[in-house]
């Protein structure tokens, strides 16, 4: 309990708030992406009307469910990271940076090969740059005060 109190006392830089807002935006986008395939396949209006698999291949409905489930996992992960981040936990910085990296790769692949999602790209860029700010890295224990170098 004492440890939690100590971390709560750390001053939260403005960048942390910006990142939290960006995560929030991404969460909303991902949430939309959870429901969008299901809406597109009329799941909410007509319910499950077909099978998810045709042999070893996914049907359109199956594909929609898989896509929806993936984005649901991403959204939930986003919430967990957001909670850890607001509580200034080191692991949340590492997870968020890795998550942003993966998300950037997916965004770039989408940009070059399918359809670009500029809102996601912009959010990721903001998060990546904000996470790189020295004060932010210091507050999450990523950069030491003495030598200024990354661990």
């Amino acid at each position, binding site marked *: 309990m004492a440890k939690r109190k100590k971390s709560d006392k750390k001053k939260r830089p403005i960048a942390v708030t910006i990142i939290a807002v960006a995560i929030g935006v991404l969460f909303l986008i991902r949430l939309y992406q959870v429901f969008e395939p299901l809406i597109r396949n009329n799941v909410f209006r007509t319910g499950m009307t077909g099978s998810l698999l045709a042999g070893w291949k996914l049907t359109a409905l199956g594909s929609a469910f898989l896509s929806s489930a993936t984005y649901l996992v991403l959204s939930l992960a986003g919430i967990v990271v957001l909670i850890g981040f607001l509580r200034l936990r080191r692991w949340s910085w*590492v997870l968020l*940076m*890795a998550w*942003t*990296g993966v998300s*950037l*790769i997916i*965004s*770039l*692949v989408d*940009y*070059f*090969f399918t359809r670009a999602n*500029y809102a996601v*790209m*912009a959010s*990721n*860029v903001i998060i*990546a*740059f904000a*996470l*790189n700010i*020295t004060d932010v890295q210091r507050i999450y224990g*990523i950069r030491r005060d003495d030598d200024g*170098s*990354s*661990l």
Partner: protein
Amino acid sequence: MAPASDRPTAPVTASDLELLRKFEPVVCYTKGEQFFPTDVDHYVKESSLWEHHPDGRDELMVKQGDLTLEKLIESRPAEFGAVRYIRFIEALDLAESARVLADQAVLRRKLGHYFHAGIGRLARGGILPRLLDGLFSLSFLLRGKVSAATAAAAELDYNEIFKEDKQYTYYGRVTRQNGWTMLQYWFFFCFNSWRSGFYGVNDHESDWEMATIYLYEEAGQLIPEWAAFASHDFKGDDLRRRWDDGEELKKAEGSHPVIFAGAGSHASYFRRGEYQAEVNLPLPGWVSGLIHSWNKLWTETLGQPAMNTFHIPFVDFARGDGLRIGPGESQTWSPVVIDESTVWVSQYRGLWGLFARDPISGENAPAGPMYNRDGSPRGSWYDPLGFAGLDKVAPPPQMQQKLTDNCAKVARRQEELEKLIPEKAAELQEKGARQKGMEGNPHLAKQYSALEKEINSLSAEVRNLRREESENSALLQSLTRRLERMKSGGQDDPRAHLRHLAVPDDPSQVLRFDRAAETWAAISLSLLLFAIAALIFFAPKYIWVGLVIILILFVVAESFLRGAFVQTVGRITLILAMLTALILFFHFWKWVIIAALVAMGISLMYQRLRELTG
């Protein structure tokens, strides 16, 4: 810090040979070293003399068996661009190559010449340097190279020479400049086997290495003050250590500096250990400029630790656990005194081994002690003081006098200034008063303007004199303090002159890499190539994206093994973010500029309004 009285001395009347013997070094080699300092006579007798012509022809001048030191220096005219060189090992055909390689293995078994690298050099660098290392290895297909069979034949021949003449030779030179007496020890090796024997940068026939001891004279005695060893990547001040720096400069029997020689490279180090040498790629100017700009952005704007990606790590093993030669050791030196009158030193300007046609010279043999590869004079020979950054340093007994002279000179100038400044200041005030008197008289406008120019000039002069006085005062204070310290016997920090200290790898740091990291280092480059091949075969449509993803995965895997996951993930994400930002700017530059202007406007307005409302 040992006072000078505790140091070994030699009378100034001692002969050159006596001086050389008094301070000759002990050289410690690494276990597995195949070549030791030998004499040039036997080497030359086993060699042939060649000339490489600008049209690409190689012409035999003196065949093997006929060459002597006398024939080496015979006058032979040559055209511009020609390269004269000695060839220790004649060209080998396939059968001969196979035979010498087999004989080399037998010899090594017999002599116990085994070398274990331990923590490999590849595990000491990241995946990108390893990728560059692969390219460096491939570059030998285009560059000239000394073959493995040549290295093996050289090893066999050297052992034959050593059987005939079991001596370890150094060539000693004594020279005097600016109050210093310098003892140069030149070591000649038949071959540099750093690459073929010890995973290093290069191989070449013949090798010249050098160490210098700097002595000063006091009360009829010569006293050592500095020692400088030739080494990779270091020059000037960084090459020398002070005699009383016991931690850096080890001594045997009090008067013999200890050198730890790099395995195969024979480079000299002050401390035993394994040194990381770095080879920077010879990149075109515009590429270097781009890299410089990127590094600036990366470190200064983004605040990231510097990335030194475009270098290839090599290790110079100076373990000192092998043969030791010198006073107090089982093997001792056979000294030979040389100077400018030694004809093979001064009159042979060619290479002392094979000219491998390597454009970046790494595999070409070196020239002799007095010359560079292009035949120009070698700095360490004609300017041994400048070579170790000592040209600006006076011998200790003269230092105090030079400091006293300096103090007197500055004090004299201060006295001059103390008289001059009031005179000039008074003159300035007088002119100022005159100028004031002219005001309000339009008919004096011309004179007023001329006087104003004079006043401005005089004012600048007075200002400069006052600045000089102030600076001299600080200088005099500093010089006097130093003089007092010297008079009371105080010494400077022995390493104050060093800018870059050669430090061996920290063993605890090296041990951080476990077996998995070593194995990964050995196989990762090949795995990467296999993965790229698979990508081209199975998914050619996604080649570029696939390449980037594969590279990222490899770098992340590498970072796990090296304990640098957090740093690596941060770096990769940042690079991806910069790329994405560029794309976004490309598509939305108008919006980005509008947003930036609006943000700046709001920020300025906020600041001004806050100022207004107090």
